């Protein structure tokens, strides 16, 4: 479950479909916005969207990071061939955003709209209410002008149509249209299960609203009820510069196709301390302990397996970790910490069967790479699980120690790193 960022392109496209209905016909947004991906063919794109040749355009990366103006990553007032040239330039070189390096792959193209007013609106949720933030002074300096932002609270039981917005708005020609727009954006926020939505800035040209910049996150647990609204093409891109390795991708796929949870992130593939921990809570504690004992920089991976995964799923997970660990031999070898608390209902013997299968498959590599294994676990059938895995360790001749609940959960971290 998570609040996941979606592309600006998608947030704008979805809005363009419903704004007229939400505003009872009073406001519309053309949704003239294009997403350029690595596989995009520029001539086909032009054939489908002839307006690209007729209007001046804006281009910027659409990859879930902001401050693109300040980073020099906005192309303004271009024609279509200038757009193509700009995109080609930008995709070819590695760039650094904050401290992260990566390549630009996705871009958004829209009409260039000269305008005067820049308004700000965002909506965020708190436990018992949502807050609509609105300002007449939107734009890139919004943070410096935050004192001019008005907060409009909407409790869970309020109906937005019943809220009087007059006290928040100047009595000028735009008041009525702003009232309608704020209420429409709120309905969009609720119906589409956004957890965060920001349009900074937006402007009006006649009765048309132009969102110039949009940031949106949806509640991905709502996908079973919102997927019809979101559409099949909704993407939840990884943050910039964080393309998944093929092993992380593999585990992610396993995770998506099971009710269990399987998570793996590579931190330092050359690291000497590897973990396979049961449960999100425990995995954080093990990572903390490894760092506390001074081996933070040697921590190779972070992740967890939980929710009673099958023997096969555990096997695939363990295999992936063992494969990554045994690619390069180092002096003093490496340690694998197979840890966890006392499970409530996961069958420990069952999950250990999967781990045992992986140890059998990798026994030669484990020995060759001087890998030492430390296990600690409790829960249903833990005695059988520990007994079996100890027996396998002896049988295969690999250095393996296994402990139950009588040993403190993170004791094995000390035992492991003391050998490095």
């Amino acid at each position, binding site marked *: *479950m998570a609040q996941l960022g979606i592309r600006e392109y998608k947030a704008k496209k979805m809005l363009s479909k419903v704004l007229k209905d939400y505003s009872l016909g009073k406001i519309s947004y053309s949704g003239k916005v294009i997403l350029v991906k690595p596989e995009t063919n520029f001539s086909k794109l032009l054939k489908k969207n002839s307006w690209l040749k007729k209007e001046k355009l804006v281009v910027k990366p659409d990859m879930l990071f902001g401050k693109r103006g300040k980073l020099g990553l906005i192309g303004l007032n271009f024609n279509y061939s200038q757009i193509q040239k700009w995109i080609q330039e930008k995709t070819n070189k590695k760039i650094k955003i904050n401290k992260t390096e990566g390549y630009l792959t996705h871009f958004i193209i829209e009409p260039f709209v000269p305008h005067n007013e820049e308004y700000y609106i965002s909506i965020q949720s708190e*436990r*018992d209410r949502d807050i609509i933030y609105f300002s007449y002074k939107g734009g890139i300096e919004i943070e410096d002008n935050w004192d001019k932002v008005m907060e409009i609270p909407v409790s*869970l039981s309020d109906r937005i149509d019943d809220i009087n917005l007059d006290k928040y708005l100047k009595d000028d020609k735009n008041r009525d249209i702003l009232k309608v727009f704020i209420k429409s954006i709120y309905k969009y926020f*609720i119906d589409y299960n956004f957890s965060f939505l920001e349009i900074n800035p937006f402007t009006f040209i006649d009765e048309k609203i132009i969102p110039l910049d949009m940031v949106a996150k949806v509640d991905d647990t709502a996908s079973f009820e919102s997927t019809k609204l979101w559409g099949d093409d909704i993407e939840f891109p990884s943050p910039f510069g964080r393309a998944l390795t093929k092993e992380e991708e593999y585990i992610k796929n396993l995770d998506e196709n099971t009710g269990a949870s399987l998570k793996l992130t590579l931190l330092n593939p050359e690291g000497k301390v590897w973990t396979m921990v049961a449960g999100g*809570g*425990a995995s954080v*504690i093990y990572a903390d302990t490894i760092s506390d004992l001074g081996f933070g920089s040697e921590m190779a991976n972070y992740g967890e397996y939980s929710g009673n995964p099958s023997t096969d799923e555990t096997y695939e997970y363990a295999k992936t970790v063992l494969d990554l660990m045994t690619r390069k031999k180092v002096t003093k070898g490496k340690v694998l910490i197979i840890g966890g608390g006392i499970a409530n*209902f996961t069958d420990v013997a069952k999950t250990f069967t999967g781990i045992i299968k992986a140890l059998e498959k990798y026994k030669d590599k484990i020995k060759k790479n001087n890998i030492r294994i430390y296990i600690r676990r*409790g829960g249903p059938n833990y005695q059988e699980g520990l007994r079996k895995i100890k027996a396998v360790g002896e049988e295969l001749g690999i250095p393996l120690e296994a402990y139950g609940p009588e040993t403190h959960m993170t004791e094995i971290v000390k035992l492991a790193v003391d050998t490095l």
Partner: protein
Amino acid sequence: MNNYEIFNKNTQSLIFGLQVKAIQRMLDFDYLIQREKPSVTAIVNTTRDGFHKVFFGKKEILIPIYKNIKEALKNHKKIDTMINFSSFRSAFETTMTGLEEKQIKTVIVIAEGVPERKARIIAQKAKDLNKWVIGPATVGGIVAGQFKIANTGGTIDNIISSKLNKSGSVGFVSKSGGMSNEMYNVIARNTDGIYEGIAVGGDAYPGSTIYEHLIRYEKNPKIRMIVMLGFFS
């Protein structure tokens, strides 16, 4: 029962969903602590009513199964707790139905994946009705020696070695169910054991927060030490 207590040795519960293992584990606990009557009084199974066979000690007993919450509660007026095993798709509706029933004071929502807005509405409903919701995305919790929620605490040998069958002095609360069970063990090795432990679940908007349980523990004279694993957010 005082206002700082949610469950005790007389709590009777309705299990929504025919969760065979969880139900048997609750009855094993009930038998171990010598409860007069099992803590599971009725079950809701939307597809089939009838009876469910379980062991209460060595004796086989039957627990009635109903097709909906209203019917189950109509026939068992002493049930005040609902342990809801609905999937994330229907957990919102069934939890709200449970909360709206006058005799239900507490709903535990096991499902992981309840949409955030729905979870907030549940929390608000509980607050408006002065009732308790634990979860979503939780394994539950336990009042040592009195009442065990579903799969909390695992098997009987863990219940005994973590002293969960006897009343201790420590009040424990955390987000994580897995780490709660580990902590019951650590606490049992270093004190007279827990009085009560609650896992509020991993969601952004739990039905009851860590803070709310801490306040409740503070009022309970039987709790002499409070332990929290996690962080305030």
